[in-house]
């Protein structure tokens, strides 16, 4: 088990929950609107405060939950709404790519332009992002390419764990399957994934285990064969007693 969350809670936002990610796993969270999905993902990445909760990563307690600290531990985050937060729509693609990796790509704070250009090109090619100039702005790219760009930004830092929100929301089928292929491939190579999604088929295709959330609590955990649409929806929608 490489990542474990215990007793994560916040008054009015999240009831106490706990989950874990084991070696080589891809786990998912499924829930309908208002179930608390986004809250959990933001809390474990430090974008939202928590009242209680302990997170352990590779046998080390994560005491400082903030993006800079977590990035140091190679934990990255993919937001669910790239327009609102996730991509700088009005800045060049190369600028976006360098954001999570600025220190590595600069010497004495001066940015190494060639290194940045190489780095950007590498991922444009890797993901077949359709773009003609590395300084083109994300707002001029298609949804699928934007999403691929956002994923590249995280991947480029060689993460050990990725917290992913809605990885393929609003993009074309081709890009969708490319991203799925990528996630599975990266998982094979040892990157852990916690995927928060409202797209059940997607989760079923990617995850080894799925946690189902409802009303700000985890109401179920399904493993491998147990996962089927009926059971999941029964848990997620369920009758409110």
């Amino acid at each position, binding site marked *: 088990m490489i990542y474990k969350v215990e007793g994560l809670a*916040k*008054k*009015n*936002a*999240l009831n106490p929950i706990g989950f874990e990610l084991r070696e080589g796993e891809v786990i998912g969270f499924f829930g309908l609107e208002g179930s608390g999905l986004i*809250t959990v993902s933001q809390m474990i990445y430090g974008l*939202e*405060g928590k009242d209680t909760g302990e997170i352990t990563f590779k046998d080390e307690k994560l005491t400082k939950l903030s993006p800079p600290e977590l990035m140091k531990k190679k934990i990255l985050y993919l937001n669910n709404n790239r327009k609102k937060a996730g991509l700088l729509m009005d800045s060049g693609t190369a600028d976006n790519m360098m954001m999570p990796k600025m220190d590595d790509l600069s010497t004495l704070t001066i940015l190494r332009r060639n290194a940045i250009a190489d780095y950007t090109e590498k991922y444009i090619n890797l993901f077949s992002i359709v773009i003609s100039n590395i300084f083109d702005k994300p707002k001029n790219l298609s949804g699928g390419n934007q999403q691929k760009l956002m994923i590249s930004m995280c991947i480029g830092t060689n993460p050990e764990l990725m917290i992913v929100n809605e990885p393929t929301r609003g993009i074309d089928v081709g890009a969708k399957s490319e991203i799925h292929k990528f996630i599975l491939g990266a998982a094979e190579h040892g990157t852990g994934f916690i995927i928060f999604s409202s797209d059940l088929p997607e989760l079923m295709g990617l995850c080894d285990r799925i946690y189902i959330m409802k009303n700000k609590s985890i109401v179920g955990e399904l493993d491998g064969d147990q996962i089927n649409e009926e059971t999941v929806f029964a848990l997620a929608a369920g009758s409110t007693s």
Partner: protein
Amino acid sequence: MNTKLSIQNMNQKISGIFRKNEAVSVTLSVLLFIFIILATPYALDPANIDALQTAVAPYGIISVGMMVLLISGVFDLSVGSAMCLGGLVAAICLTIGATPGIAIIAGILAGMITGLINGLIVEVAKVNALIATIGTMYIARGISEIVLVGRGQAGYTNFPESFNHIGRGQFLNVYFMFWIMVALVIIFQLILKYTKFGRQLFFIGGNYNAAKQLGINARRIRIIAFIISGTLAAVAGILVTARAGIANRYTGVGANMAVIIACIIGGGSLIGGQGSIIGAIAGMIFMTLVSNAFNLFTIPPQWQDILIGIILLIVITVDGYISLSKQKKLGKF
């Protein structure tokens, strides 16, 4: 998006906030007033009461308009210049022989036009309110200066007595201008609380885009708010000019900041969506009382700025802290 829910949320936000905002400035004013009365006999001296009235009324009137704007999410830095322009236009009319009635209408018209221009620049040309009203502030002030070229220090004077009476006359020992302010306060407080227009102002200030989605014509309402602000500024300018019997270039200098500060103390916010007319007036009364107290106790004026600055900081910080805690309780942050 569940629009019903968002209207409910907005309503909740409005009623809860109403109570808090006025409380601060009203309490401060009352406490300070009591303190002054107890501390010196001169406080209730008729001359002092006169001074208080004529100091509060003009800026108080402008504060009404400014608060309306603040609630809708914008503000107007040109009010001082509009004030000067309003008085000036009236003065010029009088000088060329118009009746006071016409002169007043002309002055008010000048304010309305200034407000309309502000509204168009901000809402149609989509220029940021800060920049736009700085621009119109410069332009209106510049026009005033140009018109006053060659008139010497005094500017325009020698108005008919009937005109001056508007600024100097009293009813039941209270200045006309003070009554006008009170009337405006009542009218606009009622408008804010009980009319659709008032509700919409809060919605627009609270969440401009959501308000538009709910079908509110945010642009038109804001333009109307700007017109109100400009008009009231001109009204204040006319009153001040009438009382002084002079229209010169110094009218309204520094008014914009004083009014904005009064409104913030009174519960308004530059972000929009909160505030009340009573709060604005209480804020202005408070600031006037501070100034009065400093005069009565002969404290050097710079301490006034220091005190106001500190109070503003406290009000803004506490307001922010409360807002932050509320959001934390609701589960955000």
